[in-house]
Structures are given as C-alpha cells and as structure tokens.
C-alpha cells in the first residue's frame, strides 16, 4: 500500500469535492428554499460559461471580472424564468421538474443555434496555468482557485443566510410559508430572489467549469444529476451540501485510486441510493421542511 499516492488521492479529492460543491450550491438554495427541482440548473452552468466566453471574446474583459459578470447575467436569466414560469408552479413540485426540463432543452438548443456546436475555450491569466506542489501531489493552480472561490461563496452564503435580515426572511419562508407571510414577509419576492441567487451561483460555476473543461452547449447535462444527488443527500441545507460534496468527492477520488473513474462513479451512485434508502430526508434535514 503506497501511502504517498493515497495521500495524493485525498488531496485531489478535496479539489473534486469543491467542484461538485460549487455545481450544487445554486441548486441547494433553489431546492432548499422553494422545493423547486430545477432541471435547467446544468444549462444555467452552461450559460455562465458562455457569458464569460462572450465577455472575454467580444469585450476583452479580464477573466477575474468575468466571474461576477457571469453571476449577474445568469441571475437575470433566472429572474426572468422565475417570473415567467416557475412562480406558477410552486404548488406542483413534480411539474417544476418537467417544466424546467423543457427550459433546459430550449436553452441548450438556443445556445447551439447562436454559438454553434464547436467547443469554445476560456483564457485564464498565466499565473493560473501552472501546477502547484501540495506535499507530494501536483495539482493545477486553477483547481486551487476553484477551491478558494467555493470556500468564499460558502462563507458569503452563510453570512447572507444567518447574519442578515434577508436571510432570516428566507429561513422563515423555508420553514413555513403561510406563517411567514402572516408576519409580513413577501414570500413571492423571497422565492424570486433566491431563484435568481441560485441561478447566479450556477453562472459562477459555469465560468469556472469553462476553464476546467471545454465550453459546449451540452456541457450542463453532465453536472445536473451529480449536483442533484449532492443536494438530496445533504437534505437541501447549505451545511448538508458541503458535507455531502466533501464526503463523496473524497470517496470518488479514493475509489478511483483503487479502480478507475467510471467505476468509482458507479460505486458512488449505488452508495447514494443505499444511503437515501435509510435516510430519505438527507444528512441535515431542515426543521419542519420535510418535502
């Protein structure tokens, strides 16, 4: 047993976990607050990647500015979608799943019509292109950037949800919509804001994934099932998604070390199903919000 390479696998696992977590963050907020099963989440990620590409290619915006810009653009798309479609479906959770799948088809094909199916690439600053040695593991500097941004976003979301007036309102609506409304909280507005926020987070994830992988109209599809599983295993709470991504990311990395990437994914899917069999409400279920 080579301990050194196992350690490498563990370090790589942290990076995998951060990628899965940032893909799942937006979904956690949307699902956790409103119970909307947003199948278009993968396409929001894809839109984030394409917004960065556009800003970089046509306006020459530096990459680091593309991240917040993608957040704003995709958040606006999410806002429009919520106002135009999702808000009519809040009392039909399974229908949100179907309707957003329709949205994902439209977005995917729309982007394909505008940009074509050929892959696009995002340019990153020189300093992110090198590799960094962490102990004995060599890891690309950009993965550390992803890890840092994920950690920053988790912290910012924690501040937003637990230290601001808006956060209190969100948590109140989450626990009991009618009760919150009777205390003067505009739950429709809260849903709208959280949906836009979740979409924006997907946009940031997309801007990062556009560098990790190539930018394609179909790139979102590969993230959405994974992101969903993180959210469901976590139970729809922020802490739950962090722990779920951390554990599965490490497991993916360690299993892949013993077998290979695809087989590791298979094991993870099966383990998740077994886990949810015994704990359908997820790791950290929110009080009174069992859906």
């Amino acid at each position, binding site marked *: 047993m080579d301990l050194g390479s196992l350690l490498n696998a563990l370090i790589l696992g942290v990076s995998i976990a951060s990628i899965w977590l940032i893909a799942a963050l937006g979904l956690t907020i949307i699902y956790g607050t409103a*119970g909307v099963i947003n199948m278009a989440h993968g396409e929001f990620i894809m839109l984030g990647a394409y917004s960065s590409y556009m800003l970089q290619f046509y306006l020459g915006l530096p990459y680091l500015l593309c991240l917040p810009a993608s957040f704003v653009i995709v958040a606006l798309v999410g806002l429009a979608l919520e106002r135009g479609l999702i808000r009519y479906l809040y009392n039909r959770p399974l229908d949100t799943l179907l309707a957003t799948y*329709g*949205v994902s*088809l439209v977005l995917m094909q729309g982007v394909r019509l505008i940009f074509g199916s050929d892959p696009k690439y995002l340019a990153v600053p020189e300093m992110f292109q090198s590799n960094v040695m962490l102990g004995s593991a060599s890891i690309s500097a950009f993965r550390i950037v992803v890890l840092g941004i994920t950690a920053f976003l988790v912290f910012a979301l924690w501040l937003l949800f637990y230290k601001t007036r808006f956060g209190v309102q969100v948590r109140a609506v989450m626990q009991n919509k009618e009760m919150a409304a009777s205390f003067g909280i505009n739950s429709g507005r809260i849903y709208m804001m959280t949906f836009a926020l979740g979409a924006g987070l997907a946009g940031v994830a997309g801007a990062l994934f556009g560098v990790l992988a190539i930018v394609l109209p179909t790139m979102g599809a590969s993230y959405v099932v994974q992101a*969903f599983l993180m959210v*469901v295993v976590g139970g729809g709470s922020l802490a739950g998604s962090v722990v779920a991504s951390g554990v599965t990311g490490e497991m993916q990395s360690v299993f892949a070390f013993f077998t290979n990437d695809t*087989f590791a994914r*298979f094991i993870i899917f099966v383990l998740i*199903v077994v886990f949810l069999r015994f704990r*359908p409400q997820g790791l950290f279920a929110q009080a009174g919000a069992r859906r």
Partner: protein
Amino acid sequence: MGNLYHNKTAQWLTYAVFFAGFAVIPMTVDDSFLLNQLATYGVYGMLALSISLCWGFGGILNLGQGIAFGLGAYGMAMTMQMQTQDESNPIPPFMLNNSLDHLPMLWQPFQNTYVGMILAVAAPTLFCAVFGGIMFRARVSGPFFAIMTLAMLSAFYTIIIDRQPYTGGVNGLTPPSSLQFAGYEVDPYSPTAYWVVFGFLLGATVIAKLITQSSFGLVTQAIRDDSERVRFLGYSVAGYETVIYTVSGLIAAIAGCCWVMLVQYVSPAQLDVGFSLSMVIWAAIGGRYSLLGSILGAFIIQGAQSYLGDTFLATWLLILGGFFIIVVRFLPNGLASLVESGLGLFAAKRGPASAEPNGDAKPIPAE
C-alpha cells in the same frame, strides 16, 4: 347524460378503433423501411404506456424507465449475439478485441435463446420489484423517488460503459443477424416483426386498461391522490406501489426486447437520462391520466421528430422544449384533457338538466 369521455364502453370502443387503424397499416404500406419505423413507434408507445400506468395511475414519477428498457434491450441483444456464435467461434468478436478468451459467466445463459429471452424480461422486472420494494417500504416517494431512479439510471449507464469486455462499452452491441425464433427468422423489416410489436402493444394496453379499471387500480389511484389517507384506511401502500411499478417495468422490458429485434442494436444511449426523460415527455404531452393519450403522445412527438425534424433540423429541440413548457404550464393533464373538456362541453349542451352531483369539484379522470 354524463361526459362521454368517462364512459367505459366508449373508451373501449376508442381503443378498438385505434388498434384497428394500427392493424390496417401493414396491408396498405409496402415500404418496408416505413413499416419498421412505424413498428419502432409502437415500442415508444409501449414505453409511454408504461409511464402512464406508473405515473398517471400510481403517482410514481419514474425518471429511470430506461433501466428496465435498457436491461431488456441488452438481454435481447445478448441473446441475438449468441445466436450467431457457434462451436468454432464461441465468443463475440468484441470480447476478443478486449482480450477476453472465454465466455463470461454473465453471458452463458444467453447461449440458449429461450433462457436468454426469459432472462431479458425477467431480470429488469425482478430489479424493479426489488428496487421498488425496498424504496417504497422506506416510504420514499414523490420527487425523492424520481431522483433515486435518476441516480440508479446513471449507475447502470456508467457501469455498462465501464465494463467494456462484457457489455461492449460505449459502442454497445450490434448483433450481426436478425432474431431466430423457433426455427424462424424474424426479419425486422417484415410485417411479421410489425405484428409482434403490435401484439405486445395491444396486450400491454388491454392489461393496463383492465388494471386501471380493477379495484387494484382504484387503490393505486387513491394512493396517487393521497397516500397517507389510503395508508390509514389499512392498505399496504408500499405493496400496491411496488406492484404497479413492477408491471410498468415489465412493459418497458418487453419494449426493450422488441426494440432490439427491430433495430438490431443497443448502446448505453438507451440508458441515457435524456431518453428516459423523453418517455416522460411523451406521457405528459399526451396526457398521463389516459393510457391511449400517452401512446398517442409518443406517436405525435416521435412522428413529428422524424418528419418535422428534417425540416426544422436546428430548431426542433427548441420547438419541443417550448411546446412541453406550454403543456406543463397550461395543460398539466396533457392533450387528452382537451378531449375530456371538449366532450364535457358537448355533454353539458345535450342535457343541462342532468348535471353531475358534484359538478364543481373537478374530478381527476379515471381514464
């Protein structure tokens, strides 16, 4: 006079007309490629039917119907592949390419055509019974069950790609010749193949229809509307859910076998998330509370994809997605509900005096 839509005799008559129309086709169509294509629509119809039975009448949204379909298809493809192997050439070529020098255990039962075909149907059905049984007993339901089926589907998808020496990996299996059954060769482009699919579709529809009209079907529909209440009435909710989920899986497995018989090909694409979701789209657009509506939904969408898809090559997915959004938003019970309300208007005009006792409460149609 009530709404004709809810009249059982009228429903059976409509089904009879539909299947009679479907039966006339091979006598009028000479083009064997068209016949083959229409037969594949029959397979899609079976899949939509299975979704309608499970989702519309059992309230179980299954996003992983591709599991039963794909496993059935793989079983059939393995059987057909083994039919072309003989003593001098005992193992399929792709295994040799993956440096496998003997037939794996998994493949051995498929050397016998009958055992292989029984396995192709039994294995997915058994999987549904076990998986469904475990999940429903743990009271996993609604969106959670949908996500679980999605996870299971992804698991099968990845394992099939990963175990290339046993499954053919991404390339899948392409049995070189058509199915030999009882000393007879079933040419996929012949009317015989069409009749086989027709027979299974007819059989599946009649059985599904009888189920929905039986007292068993009434209980599953009650579970769909309020599972807690049914549980408090003393019914075994998990038992009913498992049975309807398993029957639905059985239909999908048979559809998988028919599909491979028609196209002589199977790949992980049949277990792709997108394909399973499109089955749900067929049922949703056609009307999940109507078995016939779902079948027609599959015909309409797949037919439009084949014919309009060529004209609107680039915008087809855009149109499909948009249409689907509109149906979910404004017509949650699908196109069949248009027929229902149309006939309802007609009935109201004919006999306004005999209004239904609870005309205000909008009942979810039993068909």
